[in-house]
């Protein structure tokens, strides 16, 4: 054995025993890597704390990370969960996995985006939007409300992601909160009657609308922005500005209870909640909307100029669980 000792040690170090080196923080994020990675790199550069991140995949949108967090519950490996949507942290909250922390940097973030107990805090938001293909829909005809999607004029030409997954599920649950059970069901029924195409992800919706395989689709601001940046013949509508408003979905950050680096976790959360990060994310390609109303934005309308759908995220999360059986029925799963 003795003569192999050196090799064994080399192998071990090669396999990446990184534990011994300095400060680090482990973050799992379901925010798109394209946008979250530069922010984390910046934090690394700034504070000298090494960030070890796991990003989520498009294919298994937000499920890999949350499944992993839940599976690791008894021996947490993550310090921080940066969620791209406002509902998944509540799943962890329900399982008692969050460590409350009220960041001093969050003081100027509006109360509706924060947990009063400090379990989770929102920042930079996306909203739901309609993306339409300019070759298929003329300027005057553009749908201004999601209820226009029920119009027989768009029969078979509307696309949306599977309402069991991702932000679409949150959107639908919010509709149930705002419209009430009955009207929301009617809306979904109407969509189905109008031949809505249910596809795997928002990215798929974007792809279909960009390529003219669907005329109009529901998605998030960042997907829509990317279609514009790719130079597709598309336009964005913030729906229902004269009615129920559009759903605002902030990012959320929370600290995992029992994580290995609690001190560094707090530093990272402070950084993420700073005005600077909101500005950065607003200027990035995804053009996220700062929650601080005074932050200047150029690429998208500021939140102060939009009519948001008035929802309580905890209620949305609860509603989502209630309506899953119905949604399962609706999608045929």
């Amino acid at each position, binding site marked *: 054995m003795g003569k192999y000792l050196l090799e064994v040690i080399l192998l071990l170090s090669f396999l990446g025993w990184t534990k011994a080196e300095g400060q680090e923080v482990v973050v799992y994020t379901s925010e798109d890597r394209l946008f979250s990675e530069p922010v984390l790199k910046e934090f690394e550069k700034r504070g000298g704390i090494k960030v*070890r991140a796991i990003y989520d995949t498009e294919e298994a949108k937000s499920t890999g990370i949350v499944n992993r967090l839940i599976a690791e519950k008894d021996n947490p490996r993550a310090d921080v969960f940066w969620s791209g949507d406002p509902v998944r942290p509540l799943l962890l909250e329900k399982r008692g996995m969050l460590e409350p922390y009220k960041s001093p940097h969050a003081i100027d973030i509006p109360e509706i985006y924060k947990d009063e107990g400090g379990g989770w805090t929102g920042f930079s938001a996306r909203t739901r939007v309609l993306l339409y293909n300019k070759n298929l829909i003329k300027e005057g005809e553009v749908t201004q409300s999601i209820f226009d999607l029920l119009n027989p004029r768009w029969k078979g030409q509307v696309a949306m992601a599977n309402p069991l997954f991702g932000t679409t599920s949150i959107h639908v649950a919010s509709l149930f909160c705002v419209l009430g059970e009955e009207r929301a069901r009617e809306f979904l029924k109407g969509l189905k009657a109008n031949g809505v195409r249910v596809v795997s992800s928002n990215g798929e919706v974007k792809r279909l609308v960009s390529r003219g*395989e669907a005329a109009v689709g529901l998605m998030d601001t960042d997907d829509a922005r990317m279609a514009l940046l790719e130079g597709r013949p598309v336009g964005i509508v913030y729906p229902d500005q004269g009615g129920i408003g559009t759903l605002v979905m902030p990012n959320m950050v929370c600290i995992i209870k029992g994580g290995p680096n609690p001190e560094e976790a707090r530093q990272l959360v402070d950084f993420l909640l700073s005005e600077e990060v909101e500005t950065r994310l607003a200027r990035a390609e995804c053009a996220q909307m700062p929650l601080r109303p005074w932050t200047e934005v150029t690429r998208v309308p500021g939140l102060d100029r939009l009519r948001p759908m008035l929802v309580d995220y905890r209620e949305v999360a609860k509603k989502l669980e209630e309506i899953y059986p119905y949604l399962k029925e609706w999608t045929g799963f």
Partner: protein
Amino acid sequence: MLWGSFNVGGSPSVENYRDVFTRRNASFFLNSLLLASLSTLLATLIGIFLGFLLGKTDIPLKWALRPLLLLPFIIPSYIYGLAWANLLGKSGFLNNMLSNLPFVTAEGISNFIYSPFGASMVLGLALFPIVMVVAEGSFIGVNASLEEAGLLFGGRGRVMREVLFPMALRGIISGMVVVFVLAFSEFGVPFLLGVKVFTTKIFTEFSVFYNEKTATALCLPLVLFTVLIMTLERIFLGARPLEGLARGAGGRTYYYLLGKGRIPYTVACVVILCLSVFLPLVSLVMDSWSLGAYVRAFSLAGTGMVNTLVFGVIGASLLTLLGLILGYFLEKYRLPPTRELGFSMLLLFAVPATVIGVGLIKLWNRPGGLSQWIYGTFAIILIGYVVRFSPLAVRFMGDAYRQVPRSISEAAEVSGAGWWRLMVRIFLPLLIPRVVMTWVLSFIFCAGELGTTILVCPPGNETLPITLFTVMANSPAEVVSATAIILLVVVLLPLIVLLVLSSRVGRWQY
């Protein structure tokens, strides 16, 4: 241990299973069955055809065809599906071409690709390389003198029908079963194309309800069915003759010279190559092609490239070694305990990657000591590879041992060889072609593994498939394509080196 990871992942109770066998689940199951059967059929037809051309004829450009035809299998299936959706969707380039034909509408083609039939086509095209590789190996393994004996009585067609194919059947069926199980447990393609199958159902349980117990319980039908298929195969093959060892009895393989047929057959190969490789690749790249995209993709890929190579190579070598050792014991002793082991390993093969990932976390993510160390490092990724793909490696190597006449190894035993010398001096050199094949397939599997790796990968480290799929969300299409192409090149490079090397050293050809 392998078995344990599955058990720990599940530890399901009776209630979870009660809901498994419902009518709706039955329709998912039938869809899965349809998808798996059709794709296996397609993969088998193409695979046998190409395997025959590569292994038994003098078709030109073999050295190029061999690695290129592996490409559909190397492209991650989700990306491959995306490429086909691009091609055949309403505004797709191929759709536009085809819909000019009579009786074909753009709508019809688009509906086709988003149906179980379209998904079967995509999967069949993605998986035929497995049958091709295995069939080629089996064809080469048929002793030339047997075919020559047949030629005295009948034409080449009859010899192929009555001698060559029956002799190679064992290997071909083995490949077919692997394709079937892979298609049966495939998630990406049906999910993308909106085909409701059992795996997407399991995924829903996991991602929507975070209900690992129900999800694991849902794996039961998959697993049971896989067991059924494998049992049928065993029974069926048990009565089949073994292939002779070509190199043993004369070192020769009979070649069917194509003569004038060279041109049409080469054209057929090129057509398949275009359909299965170039068209999808072109559609990936067509969107845009810029240097900037590659620069960006490279900076993203960074350590992922090295990791994929290093861990793919280690993983494939581990798997091949495991296949060599376990395959030996499985075939040599066929005792109840080893048979059980072989069986329980086959079960793992049918279990979706996410379930295995969660199982591994539960098993290895414990405070302190060795398990802590393993879970925090790349070792856990290797374990994931081994757990997921060892059934495959053991199966391929086990089959290979059967090709070696028993007396060959007995002669060594009587001549004083212990287990080690038997392996190194007798089996290894004789099985080199099969070892190379197993290594190649294992490498492709490992290098492309996503579902389990994403769940257990140590934070801050990653392999290329993870890079690709995390980048996919919202990155410009060109960067995604560029990353996909980098992945292809990284996987293909060692294979080309190996295949070129093996055609130089004639004996190594699989």
